[in-house]
């Protein structure tokens, strides 16, 4: 069996009084793109930085491609690539010079470095601009160059910390296309992102981190099942009925219905069998009250709802429990 791409056990990292990683456990199988999600300050960047050998863990065991990060950081550096939310390329050097420099720093002889730089430039559609200074590049081109710099070597794991933050939609899609297909070329990807659509678009496996721990990990479809099945959406004709409908569909012990004023839609997770019974009763009550409905539909939960249920909402639920006591 091939080594796990990442194997983390009980990672702890404190910065002063703040605990950034609080016993994080994670096992990532090879051959996939993994997206790490989490609210700001959840420990995403700290985790990526520790995989990239950039900081010393207080305790825990972390292996990348079977190599111990603490004992053999340099061997780890040989199998990883890192690209960040800031394009860390030298603006006063050309695209080609940037790539050749990184290739040489990977220990490649000049001739190999040149060949690899050319290969990357062609692959990312930068060949025509290869000999222009990077400071004349657009934001998207710079980000592609940054991504390409990690690929002049053939890393087993590419770490991308918020790769598309601050890019316009077109540049974002271009970068997604560039990330696609990396796995086929033998490079796994671990990316952090604040955009759930990005995670869903790129990743076959999603890890949700909160308070320095993994709170959920799995393929997107599996995570969606975890938050309680499908979502019922009730579309009312008259905005004034929204509150009444939401109240009818609320059931104790289940997630509260969400009201969207703009679209006149109340959405609520179906939940378990008892929950579904409650919903049917609720719908009957709505019908008895004579509320006019425009539409009713059932859909899969969005990743956003999974994310809120597993992170933000959890603490809101605890607050409610405290308030009723």
């Amino acid at each position, binding site marked *: 069996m091939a080594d796990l791409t990442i194997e983390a056990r009980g990672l702890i990292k404190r910065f002063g009084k703040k605990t950034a990683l609080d016993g994080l456990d994670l096992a990532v199988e090879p051959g996939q793109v993994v997206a790490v999600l989490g609210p700001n300050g959840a420990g995403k960047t700290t985790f990526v930085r520790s995989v990239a050998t950039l900081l010393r863990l207080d305790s825990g065991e972390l292996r990348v491609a079977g190599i111990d990060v603490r004992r053999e950081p340099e061997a780890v550096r040989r199998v990883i690539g890192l690209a960040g939310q800031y394009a*860390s390329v030298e603006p006063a*050097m050309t695209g080609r010079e940037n790539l050749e420099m990184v290739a040489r720093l990977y220990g490649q002889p000049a001739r190999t470095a040149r060949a690899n730089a050319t290969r990357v430039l062609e692959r990312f559609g930068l060949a025509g601009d290869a000999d222009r200074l990077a400071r004349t590049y657009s934001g998207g081109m710079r980000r592609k160059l940054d991504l390409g710099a990690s690929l002049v070597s053939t890393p087993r794991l590419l770490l991308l910390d918020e790769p598309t933050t601050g890019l316009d939609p077109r540049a974002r899609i271009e970068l997604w296309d560039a990330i696609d297909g990396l796995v086929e070329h033998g490079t796994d990807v671990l990316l952090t992102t604040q955009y759930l659509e990005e995670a869903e678009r790129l990743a076959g496996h999603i890890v949700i981190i909160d308070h320095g721990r993994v709170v959920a990990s799995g393929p997107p479809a599996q995570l969606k099942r975890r938050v309680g099945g499908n979502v019922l959406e009730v579309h009312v004709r008259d905005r004034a009925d929204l509150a009444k409908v939401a109240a009818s569909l609320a059931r104790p012990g289940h997630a509260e219905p969400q009201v969207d004023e703009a679209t006149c839609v109340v959405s609520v997770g179906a939940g378990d069998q008892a929950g579904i019974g409650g919903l049917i009763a609720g719908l009957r009550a709505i019908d008895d009250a004579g509320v006019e409905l425009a539409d009713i539909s059932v859909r899969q939960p969005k990743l956003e709802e999974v994310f809120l249920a597993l992170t933000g909402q959890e603490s809101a639920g605890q607050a409610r429990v405290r308030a009723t006591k």
Partner: protein
Amino acid sequence: MTTIAATGRRRATLPASTVLIAKRAVLSFLRTPQLVVLGTVQLVGILVTFRYVFGGAFGTSQGLPYVDFAVPGFIAAGVPFTLIGTAVVMAEDLHTGFIDRLRSLPFPSAAVLAGRVLADSVVLTWSLAIATAVGFAIGFRLHGSILQGLAAFGLCLVFGLAFSWVFMTLGLLAGNGQAAQGLAMLIFPLTFGSSAYVPVETMPGWLRAFAENQPITSMADAVRALALGGHAQDFLGHSAAYYVIRSLMWSAGIMIVFFALAVACFRRR
């Protein structure tokens, strides 16, 4: 798979990676016209101003024509000014993740700092050469031998090594370019409260006490003494060797302290 095996065993050595890092820093200096042109214009402007605007008022200093007094002081004090940019670049590199990128690569990370020092020496050689040429053009003359003149030039490069570590430390501490620029401005009171531009005898007592016991004064005195050669004793009170040794001790002290600080700041990241 063969490429992985082939590149897997290789490793960029410390000297090779130092040169690569330095090359990037020098290119980024040379290809930023604002730095090269403005830096040079500024240098020439200040030298000319001191020589012709203030020079007339001073007449002679310590019995020397003001141009012979001020040019060596100006060149010595110009060393830290030339290297202020190092603090800014270092802070920006940290801020933009450039240093993270470098540290995630499999080469000795000491090269990140060593490369910076090497690049600083190259840039400093360039700007010292210009300052010296302008100095001669406005009437400065060596009173000692050519060899002593070259020794003065070399001494300035040694000061540069020391200040390189100072500004790298400030850059690593600052966190962003603007803060680094602000911190680096601390060099102003140090250069103006020294013997670089005017004799310390003209200063009020408290300032004179400070000026006589700080590194820029000892560096300016050393360069001035070498420019005077055998006449140093007559004008300055001690032989050139005395001033040179004093300035080398300051340089060594600064280098040791700030080397340790810079490495500690770098590792902490």
